[in-house]
């Protein structure tokens, strides 16, 4: 079952769903309080479970809502994937397949295992390299994990119940990595291709967001 958080993705979400649907049994889409009519665009589409946040709560929050829904719907494997088309759905079988092949509970997609991401800016690459060091020193995430901000992942049902992620916004990626790698869960990475376009780069994370993520993680540690 795929969980897809969507915030103001009216222009892209339908295309993404069309691409994702052949690779999963069910789609759970969480409209995160969009104001561009994303919900209206999807409400008559059958074959998907459409949920709606009354107000925008952030990608992490939407992902958690979708994950809770997927558990309630009886999903065996949950795939987290973006609604903007950055992730290539053709990589989903690789993620799911690796769960059995490598006998693990969680599989992360990595942009740094030999595959070339399409259009990744140099600044993004540099920031991710800094993020990797931050993850290692501040969060204790092992350095052998190659992608420090992987948002494309497959998780077994039993494992997902152990991953109690609560970061509402962008810091959820690091939080999930920390929860998984510092628990008894078994994990692996597989190479995936991420496709950056002018649209997704304009809407996606900016270099300054790295500081926000660090701040959110610090504040989160004091709960």
């Amino acid at each position, binding site marked *: 079952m795929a969980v897809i958080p969507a915030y103001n993705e009216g222009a892209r979400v*339908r295309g993404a*769903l*069309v691409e*994702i*649907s*052949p690779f999963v*049994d069910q789609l759970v889409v*969480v409209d995160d*309080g969009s104001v561009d009519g994303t919900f209206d665009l999807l409400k*008559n*589409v*059958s*074959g*998907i*479970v*459409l*949920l*709606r*946040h*009354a*107000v925008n*709560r*952030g990608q992490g*929050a939407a992902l*958690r*809502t979708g994950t*809770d*829904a997927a558990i*309630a*719907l009886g999903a065996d494997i949950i795939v987290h994937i973006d609604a903007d088309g950055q992730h290539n759905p053709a990589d989903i079988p690789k993620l799911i397949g690796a769960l059995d092949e490598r006998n693990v509970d969680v599989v992360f997609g990595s942009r740094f295992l030999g595959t070339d991401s399409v259009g990744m800016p140099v600044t993004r690459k540099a920031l991710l390299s800094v993020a990797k060091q931050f993850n290692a020193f501040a969060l204790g995430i092992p350095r052998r994990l190659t992608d420090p901000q992987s948002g494309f992942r497959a998780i077994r049902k039993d494992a997902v119940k152990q991953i109690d992620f*609560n970061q*509402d916004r962008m810091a959820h990626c690091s939080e999930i990595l920390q929860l998984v790698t510092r628990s008894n869960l078994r994990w692996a990475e597989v190479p995936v291709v991420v496709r950056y376009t002018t649209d997704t780069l304009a809407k996606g994370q900016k270099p300054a967001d790295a500081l926000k993520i660090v701040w*959110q993680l610090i*504040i*989160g540690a*004091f*709960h």
Partner: protein
Amino acid sequence: MYIIQILLSAVLALALLLTWKRAKERVIRRREAIGWTLLWIGAAVIVLWPDLTTRLAQIVGVGRGVDLAVYGSMVLLFILVFRLHVSLDKMERTMTKMVRKDALRDMPKQEVKEEDTEQVISHESRDESGLQE
């Protein structure tokens, strides 16, 4: 005693009274009230005996007493702002839980409705795109 010392002492005495009034009214906890009391008394000591800060500053190695007071205030303000951020984050998370509960409440209904009307399509019966309207 300078006028500024009298004024500041009066303000601090008022703050102390107000703190314990609120503690009695159970608006703030007793432990909190003790924390604030220590702060007001500390401030009053500095106001009434400013030379103390100079001696303290020399011990710490800062130099002037006023500098020590400014640095101390900055640290204190940072702690207070940080605590405020943590509280705000807790409130945000509570709000998220409410929004999530609301979103998930509609889910079973949606599923039943679609099954009843046979709108839920099986994977096999999907069109090429896998989606139907």
